[in-house]
Structures are given as C-alpha cells and as structure tokens.
C-alpha cells in the first residue's frame, strides 16, 4: 500500500517507464504492436490514447479507480499458499495470487473498471466488448450496470453454448448479448464483430477491449489496468516470504492476466516468468492455441504479433477446452517478451489442465477456472524442475464456477 492508505499510485498504474517495457509513440513493442485498422478508427484510438494519457496522471482518476478496486472489486486480493497441492510439484513452495476472489470471479474486473471510468471521461454512454469465456463480458456488463452505461457484448455462438451460465449472467446485468455466427464462432470472430460495431457507432461508443491485444493504445491501457495484480503480489510476497519468488506462472490466451502479474517483476532479473498457452489436444493434433510456442509473426486484430496462420496469412482456428485461451493471436508485449527471452512460453494440454483443475479442488478446496488450471499444471512441472527450494507464484486468474458444465462432461460428474 502507498503511504496514504490507497493501493494505487500513478507509478503503480503505468510503471512510468521504470521497467523499460513501454511501447513507443506508435504503440510499438520492438517490431510488435502498432495499428493495422481502418482509417475510420484512427481518430477514436487517438482520442482514447489522449484521454488515458491525461487520466493516468490525474490524482482524481487514480482515486476513483482505487476506490472501485478496494470497495467494489475486493482488492487487494490475498495470497494463499497451497502445500498439499505443492506435494505434487516435488515439494516446491507454491503460492497463489487469488484473482478468483475478486467480484465477478476473475481478474478481468480490474481492466473493466479502469476502462469504464475512461468511458465516462470520453463522454460516451455505450460500451461494447468481445468475450470468449464470458468473464470479460460479465465484468463489462457489471461495470456498465454500476456506471449506468448501455452495454452490448459480442460472443461467438460456440462460446455462448459452452458458457451458457455467463450468457445468463450478462443478461441479468442488463447487457445485450449478440451471438456471433460467422467464422469459427469463437473469440476471434467476436472481436471482428465488435470492431464492425465500433466503426459504425464510434461517436457514442467505447470499445472496452478485454485483453492486451488489438491496436495501440489497447495493449498498453489494458496492461496498466491489470498491473495491479503484480504490484500487489510483489509487496505481498516480500511480506510473506521475505523474498521475491523464483518463478511466476500464468496462463496466456490474449495475455492480460499474465502481463498483469509479470509486469511489476520484469525488472527483477532473478524472477523467471513463465506463460502457459493452451496446447489443446497437443501440438501434433493441430488442435491447439499455441500462438507464441508454435505460431508465426503476422497481423491480427490491428496488431503485429504472433498469430496462428497458414503460409498465406489466413488465420488458423485455435482450440482449447477453455474458452478464455481459445484465441489464435496474443498481446504484442508477450511477443516482445518472448523474442527478448525475458519470458518463456509453454503449452499445457487440455488433459494436463483438467488434471490440475481437479487436483487443486481436492487438495486445497479451491475450484480454479480451467484457464488458470493451465498455469497450475505449468507450476507442477516447474516445481519438479526447479526443486524443493523453489518458490513459485501462480496467478489464479479466475474461479471455476463457470466451468462446471465442462467439468461435469469431462469427469462424468
């Protein structure tokens, strides 16, 4: 906590260059990022960037955001050490950052509250968003209800079916949910449709982007609003263990929870950063979402980054048992962290993730999101690799309530 009792300072929010990991004026992280969008959207992106630039150094904005994070989202979230789970990781110490305990059940609320406040400053009354697992949609609908904004959520038809509970939650919160029936009917197509809405209604509407992908300034803004995860965790780890962790594990779809917990540690060279993508049915099956581990550099959804694409640049449909990781692109900052070697990315199969999902439930009484279970499976492997002296911090990015339908089917419950 900062000295005035708040949990957030301007430096916490933006890092203010302290980590040498901010994009240039064109939103470039090295060769990654930038803007590849219809010209019609450039003024809106410029406006969002300008309003954010002002807000992030404005004490009033920081106070409002801080207030919502504490009194509404339930921050700071606690750390929980999980020794019974860790027995399966060769005895390494495993500590969870409990984003699953936030209001709405996942880290997505952090970004959403920040951007909903920005929407007010933009003078706009309508927000649209894409959603995969439904967590970003639920969080956006929640913030829209709280701040009195009209809300439309685009969600792939396939995702609507596998996350029916979240569709109901969004509707209950007053949002309109539009099922997207073109393309692969998942997150990437929901993003296409949200962009089409935005370019049509940009005068009244803010596109409340849910991950650190997309055109500049979204990768920077979403990261900054998610940074609080790592900022808190760093202080809490020092309090709890007296030292920094040896490694951090987080799941990566678009990459917002991972960048959220990584970012405050980028300058700490002793801390290994490990991202876990969805390997689905395995690399050889072709049914996976291994964007960083098996993709190639291209442009998708307005940003240069790693993409799952064929040799002619057509996007290849991804697969994962978890809707939130089922995305053929990834945030440009992760692309940069990968190429610079500062972070390492791996794949975790559906089966390995589901085993970790079940293991955490049985050993610790915590039912994680299937997305987060990829990070848990990664931590089990990492623990065996690093040995019993190691301490591993895992971002438990969300809770598993929404995944009960999938779990019932998978485990025959």
């Amino acid at each position, binding site marked *: 906590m900062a000295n005035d009792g708040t949990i957030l300072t301007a430096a916490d929010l933006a890092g203010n260059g302290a980590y040498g990991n901010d994009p240039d004026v064109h939103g470039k992280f090295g060769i990654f990022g930038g803007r590849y969008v219809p010209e019609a959207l450039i003024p809106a992106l410029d406006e969002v960037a300008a309003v954010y630039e002002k807000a992030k150094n404005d004490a009033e904005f920081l106070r409002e955001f801080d207030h919502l994070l504490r009194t509404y989202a339930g921050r700071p979230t606690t750390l929980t050490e999980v020794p019974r789970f860790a027995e399966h990781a060769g005895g390494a110490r495993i500590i969870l950052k409990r984003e699953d305990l936030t209001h709405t059940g996942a880290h997505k609320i952090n970004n959403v509250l920040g951007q909903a406040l920005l929407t007010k400053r933009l003078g706009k009354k309508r927000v649209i968003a894409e959603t995969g697992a439904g967590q970003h949609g639920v969080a956006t609908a929640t913030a829209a209800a709280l701040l009195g904004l009209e809300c439309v959520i685009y969600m792939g038809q396939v995702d609507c079916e596998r996350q029916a509970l979240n569709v109901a939650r969004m509707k209950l919160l007053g949002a309109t949910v539009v099922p997207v029936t073109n393309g692969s009917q998942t997150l990437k197509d929901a993003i296409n449709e949200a962009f*089409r809405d935005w370019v049509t209604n940009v005068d009244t509407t803010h596109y409340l982007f849910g991950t650190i992908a997309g055109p500049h300034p979204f990768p920077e803004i979403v990261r900054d609003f998610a940074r609080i995860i790592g900022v808190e965790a760093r202080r809490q780890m020092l309090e709890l263990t007296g030292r920094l962790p040896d490694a951090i594990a987080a799941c990566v779809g678009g990459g917002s929870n991972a960048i959220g917990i990584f970012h405050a540690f980028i300058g700490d060279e002793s801390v290994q950063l490990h991202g876990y993508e969805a390997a689905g049915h395995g690399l050889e099956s072709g049914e996976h979402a291994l964007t960083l581990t098996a993709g190639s550099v291209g*442009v998708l959804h307005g940003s240069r980054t790693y993409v799952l694409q064929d040799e002619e640049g057509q996007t290849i449909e991804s697969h994962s048992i978890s809707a939130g990781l089922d995305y053929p692109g990834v945030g440009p900052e992760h692309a940069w962290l990968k190429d610079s070697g500062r972070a390492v990315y791996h794949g975790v199969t559906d089966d390995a993730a589901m085993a970790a999902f079940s293991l955490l439930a049985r050993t610790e009484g915590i039912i994680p999101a299937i997305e987060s279970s990829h990070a848990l499976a990664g931590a089990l492997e990492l623990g065996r690799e690093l040995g019993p002296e190691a301490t591993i911090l895992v971002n438990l990015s969300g809770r598993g309530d929404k995944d009960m339908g999938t779990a019932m089917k998978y485990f025959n419950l």
Partner: protein
Amino acid sequence: MTTLQTVFATAKAENRAALVGYLPAGFPSKEGAVTAAAALVEAGCDVIEIGLPYSDPLMDGPTIQDAVHRSLVNGTRIADVLRTVEGVAATGAATLVMTYWNPIDRYGAERFARDLAGAGGVGTITPDLTPEESEPWRAASAAAGIDTVFLVAPSSTEARIKAVVDCCTGFVYAASLMGVTGARETVNVAAEDLVKRTRAHTALPVCVGLGVGTGKQAAEVAGYADGVIVGSAFIRRMLDAPDEAAGRESIGVLAREMAAGVRSRA
C-alpha cells in the same frame, strides 16, 4: 495494360466519373469470378478491384463476408487471386487487388508486388494498412511499378487526410460513411464533404465507396467525385441469383445502370 492514370484522364475528358467494381476472387467460383468481372467491364466498369479473400475481414459487412467465406471454402489461394487478376486485366480494365494487410505481409511485400505486376495488376487497395505502417509496402510497390491506394474516412482529421493522401498513388479511396461495406438506402452526406476536404490536400482523383447500390446513387456521387466504387450491390445480386449465368446477367444490368449514372452527373 490500362493504367489508373489513363482511366481517370479518359473519364475526365468525357466529363464523367469512372466506375469501379469490386468482386472477390474465387466467388462464385474461380472461373466464375473472371467471367463476372468481364461482364462488369463489358457493361461499363472502368476499373475492377479483385478482393483477396481473408479469414478475418473486419471492415466488411455481411454480404462481402458471405462471398469471401464461400471463396475460402472453395479453396481460393493467392495463386488463384493472381490468375484472376491476369484474366480480368486481359479484358482491358485497370485491375487492382483489394486486400487486408496480413496476406501480403505473409507472402512477402516485394514478392507480392512483383507477382501482381507480373499478372498485369496495376495496384492495391489496403484498407487496414495505416500510413505509419505502410512504408515497406509503398517501397515494394514503387519498385514493381504499381499504385498504392489508401482510405480516408469521414472521421479523418485534416492531418490524417494529408498523411493518407501522401501515401497514395493512382487515386484516393474516400469511405462515404463510418461503417462496414454494404449497400445502403442513401449515400451518406458526409461523403461530399470528405471529397472536398481530401481535394484540398491532393491533385489525385478521389473515388467514393461504401454504400453505393443504384444508378441514381452513382449519378449523385459522380456529381462530386472522380470515381464511384460499387461492391456489395453486385455481390448481393450474385448471391441471390439461381446460378452463375443468371448472376452475371443480373450484375451486367446493374453495372449498365451505374455506368449510365456516372455519365449523368446529378
């Protein structure tokens, strides 16, 4: 090969606007795209844009999405797009490729520019390539001797219009409205203002696209623009036709109506 410069000089000499037709490669079939484009040329289209089908067409409305999806399902590849360009250019029309950036990026900018020029293409329209990211493509295009067309929009500031037109050769594409492709009841009034604002920054021809679907609208737009771009209205007719021949006939009728429109400036 007819260049864009020739097309617009001719249209100007005839005191009319040029007519630009858009069709995606591989739709309704690989061969059918060439014959459909030829029907448009015969009916009076001066320029043909061949769309390169892409899996994530985020600035296209339902009509073009549908056609592009069918084309991809038909297995259309870049080699097919280039063959389509070759076939259409053989009709004598100036032939461009309209494409999202990633397929060119992946294929290789220099290679694509060279292969397109080799197929008789005269340039590209790249709706999601911003001036900031356009340098490699402009260099490759200049080396291959093809034009680069970029878009301005009603929301564009003066500074943005200047930045965009400075990257354009051939002509400037003015998007008539804030939205995706697709025919509309009326052509947005913002279009005329945008053309005026664009002319303040360039001597290049300015063509208007998005939402033009009838001869009357074509005449209206021809009143203030150097070219009228029509896409979804043709594709809609082809989607609704019982077979390829009927589709060709139907778009021929519409194209003649449009061609009359651009000659009767409202």
